[in-house]
């Protein structure tokens, strides 16, 4: 590994982070516009063309706001919690492959930041760390609403992490590897020459359980109990203000993008654009089209997240736990067992 490799990695990190931060800002705007459209309103359209500058104006406002910390709060942990949240949201993105590798300047560059051979485990491990940001935020604020939000978050994430992990086992068994880039490569073929061999078609049950668990992991409605504003004021970020609140906000949307990217990678064929090899494009163009295809898929999943939020009401806490333990977990186990059985019979 010489210094050019380091430069390439740095460039990839900058590109991915810029994509994630800008994407989070744009997702905030998208959410506000889409929710407005669903409610027959127009939404923010004043700042910049179509409101494009609105998220930056919001961030500028948040940065200039006073940072208020409750006197009885644990200052150190109170400061640390948003950093954990945003750090986890950003670093999960490191293993997502943007596209197939490209050959440039006589080198083979893989379009992912970290080529980890235990990619899927890394993903599950990091999402577990993400709970700490929210739980610590709730605990350190020394406020009953925050604490309840934090506790709910940890209970919810533990319950849904199990079914999330188990629903991935099917994908794992089909691909036979934990590397995300190889999982995508396995999905580039066709079933019977027509249908793309995406895992959503091979693992529909796994897909549904994984998507539901992802909603719970990112604290999006219908599972946004940690911040349930009618019950808990603001939940875990009740006592946060200024940019520290902004970081939680950013982390929520960055998490949304990351989990959309992961859903895309694992189930929707990642950067695979079906039937494209028939066009005979030059390798570099092909790679760019595939990156574009990946981004489009991620954007569509993000849009799905947003529309679901404005459609389904929040679950009650006992319903959430019932769904997690009595429905999702058995389904995920059944899916894993069924996939294993089918693979065994085929082999």
């Amino acid at each position, binding site marked *: 590994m010489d210094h050019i490799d380091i430069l390439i990695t740095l460039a990839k990190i900058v590109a991915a982070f810029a994509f994630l931060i800008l994407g989070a800002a744009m997702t905030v705007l998208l959410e506000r516009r*889409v929710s407005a*459209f*669903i*409610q*027959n*309103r*127009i939404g923010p359209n004043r700042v910049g063309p179509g409101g494009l500058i609105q998220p930056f104006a919001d961030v500028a406002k948040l940065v200039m706001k006073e940072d208020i910390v409750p006197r009885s709060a644990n200052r150190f942990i109170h400061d640390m919690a948003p950093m954990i949240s945003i750090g986890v949201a950003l670093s999960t993105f490191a293993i997502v492959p943007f596209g197939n590798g490209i050959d440039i300047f006589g080198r083979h560059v893989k379009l992912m930041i970290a080529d980890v051979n235990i990619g899927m485990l890394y993903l599950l491990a990091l999402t577990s760390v993400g709970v700490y940001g929210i739980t610590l935020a709730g605990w350190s604020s020394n406020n009953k609403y925050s604490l309840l939000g934090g506790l709910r978050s940890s209970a919810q994430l533990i319950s849904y992490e199990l079914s999330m992990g188990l629903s991935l086992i099917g994908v794992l068994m089909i691909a036979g590897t934990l590397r995300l880039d190889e999982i995508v490569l396995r999905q580039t073929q066709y079933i019977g020459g027509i249908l793309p061999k995406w895992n959503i078609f091979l693992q529909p049950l796994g897909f*549904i359980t994984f998507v539901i668990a992802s909603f719970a992991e990112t604290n999006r409605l219908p599972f946004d109990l940690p911040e349930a504003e009618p019950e808990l004021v603001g939940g875990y970020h009740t006592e946060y203000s200024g940019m520290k609140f902004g970081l939680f906000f950013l982390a929520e949307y960055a998490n949304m993008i990351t989990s959309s990217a992961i859903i895309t990678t694992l189930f929707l064929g990642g950067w695979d654009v079906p039937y494209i090899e028939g066009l005979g494009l030059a390798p570099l163009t092909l790679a760019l089209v595939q990156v574009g295809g990946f981004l489009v898929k991620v954007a569509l999943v993000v849009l799905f997240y947003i*529309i*679901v939020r*404005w*459609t*389904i009401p929040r679950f009650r806490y006992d319903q959430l736990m019932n769904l997690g333990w009595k429905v999702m977990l058995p389904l995920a186990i059944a899916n894993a067992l069924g996939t294993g059985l089918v693979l065994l019979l085929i082999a």
Partner: protein
Amino acid sequence: MGTNGKMIRRSDLGFWQKIYLPEIVKGLGLTIAQMFKPKITVQFPDERFKPEPSFRGRPVLVEENGVERCVACGLCARVCPALAIEVQASETPLEKERFPVKFEINMVRCIFCGFCEEVCPEEAIIMSNEYLLAFSSQQEALFGKDKLLKPASQMQDRLDWLRAHR
């Protein structure tokens, strides 16, 4: 959809409803269909809401043949719950014999109740359709006769509406 106010028990639900996912897909369809419906927002500084004649905007004095209809009876000042109206009467050689030398409405006090319009025997003070009332000082909010007078021709909508509904 279409429960007709009937209570639905969990045991009434069919298999597909209990599974919940098809119902979610239906709901998603509903929200997506809403996205393409016309928007009801009025984008205020660019577009303006055009009030109906029944709208109670700021009160104005009706002007006919260059003179106000008002005979300065003072009923409006008497009925005004916010004490926003001040009238000073004087005599005039015209047929109506009395006219207001000073007619002042403090628009900071006015609550747009329309009592003045209702009590007026001459249909001289009526509510207009103007609603853009922002002031940068208390002095600016004192509307004298110069700002209150409006030719009857401009207020015809409201006058017709009053005739039809009272």
